[in-house]
């Protein structure tokens, strides 16, 4: 089994751990989520900080989830909270790219709109 207690490595904009990677492609202004994310709530802090930081730089942001096979409840909770924060901030242009081939994405990503009505959800 994957050891989720292992500390993530990499830089502030490239967070890697066993079985996952979350990184920011600055020129494309896109955060890529890859692999299997099954961290505990507190372990999502570096990812939360990354999202807050890049949104602070500019209101336009892409979130690419097409390579994210699994996201646990703490992970989706973190994303929804980010959407609430973005709504409170106002004036954001956030677009999420997901994959309909990954069953949970088709159900859970559209719910982001409930928290942030301006968010754009694109499922391949």
């Amino acid at each position, binding site marked *: 089994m994957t050891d989720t207690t292992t500390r993530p490595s990499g830089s502030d904009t490239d967070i890697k751990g066993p079985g996952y990677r979350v990184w920011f492609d600055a020129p494309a202004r896109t955060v890529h989520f890859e692999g299997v994310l099954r961290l505990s709530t507190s372990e999502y802090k570096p990812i939360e900080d990354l999202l807050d930081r890049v949104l602070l730089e500019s209101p336009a942001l892409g979130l690419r989830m097409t390579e994210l096979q*699994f*996201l646990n*409840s703490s992970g989706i909770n973190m994303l*929804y909270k980010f959407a*609430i924060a973005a709504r409170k901030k106002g004036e954001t242009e956030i677009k999420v790219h997901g994959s309909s081939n990954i069953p949970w994405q088709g*159900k*859970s990503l559209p*719910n982001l709109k*409930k*928290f942030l009505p301006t968010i754009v959800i694109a499922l391949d």
Partner: protein
Amino acid sequence: MLTDDPRWQRALADPDAAAELLADPGARAEFMAAVAALQAEHDDLVLLHDSTLEHANEIEEQLAVKIEQVEALVVELELRNTFIRQVFGRHVTDEVVNTLLASPEGRQLGGERRTLTILISDLRGFSTLCEGLGPEQVVAILNIYLGAMADVIGEYRGSINEFIGDAILAVFGAPVPQDDHPERAVACAIAMQRAMGRVNAELAEHGLPALEMGIGVHTGEVVVGNIGSNRRAKYGVVGRHVNLTSRIESYTVGGQVLISESAARALGDRLRTRGCFEVRPKGVREPITIHDVTGVDGPFAIHMIEEAAEWRVLAEPQPLVFTALEGKDTGGQEFPALLVAHDERHNAELRVAASLPLRADLKLVLAALPGVDAYAKVVAAGPGRAVVRFTALPRALQELLDSLPARA
């Protein structure tokens, strides 16, 4: 925040203070805004809770489906493994099957060079014995014999590579590596010879004839692996050392275990023998030394049951002619001889004109039984005299010898 403000805390605790505070229009507007903010935050939290739960339910749903799939796969895998064990497990131990199933490389084709100990056993005169028997009887004999031998080989953690008719090819040291493979193989060979007593007792119960077996053991480098095609592959051994083992086995008489120099060296001073001799097998350039094993000491200690059989000297020596065989080709010159004595262990003493080379294979035909071919190997030789061990003793000859009067 609303609840942090001491004015509102006082108002919450005291209804009079609350009435006084809400009477102030500015404070009331401030209160209403704070309540609206709390309400909005509450709505967000409820939504967050519900949406997160929805996600969790979705994941759990998928998990349930996956569990069902895994359970179905486990059932299928069990069926496959049972099948493999049934088919494959007849020839090798469960330990070997489990090791192969556990390692993915075990299922791939391909080979590797390894030093192993090879054991080949063969029944003496089985073809001759079969001639007088029906097919059901032949299969019954083989099943009793091969079943007993497979059990012994399994006990010594050998792996039966092949049953070739009445012959068994087993290897020690593969697929599961064993440091002590030469010792296991030689001890196993002795145990197999000892088990022949039980086999023959069981055959006798079924009214079937007794068997005699010879075993050759040799240690050498061979290629082992899954040989064949993806459709049909078997774990096998190939190489000249396999052939050499077969040659060593061909020098045995019933009840004997012959081993090569390399196997003997591996056992060192734990090996007990009657001695050794040199042979020059066909297709082998240098003569090789063969040891006639009687036992093994040490952790696998086991010894042959030595049976001393008494000679039965015939009242009237039986004239016969014999031919020395080169391999299995029987085109040699005929020589006369007299059969003067025999014992229960299928030995016979011959009077011959010339001396015979030790371990020569002979075809014998008694004058009293023309057309009945017997085969024997010279086990002792002296001037004018030779002791032969029958390697194929036709029933008619056995019956004749038993019926002839012995010298008083």
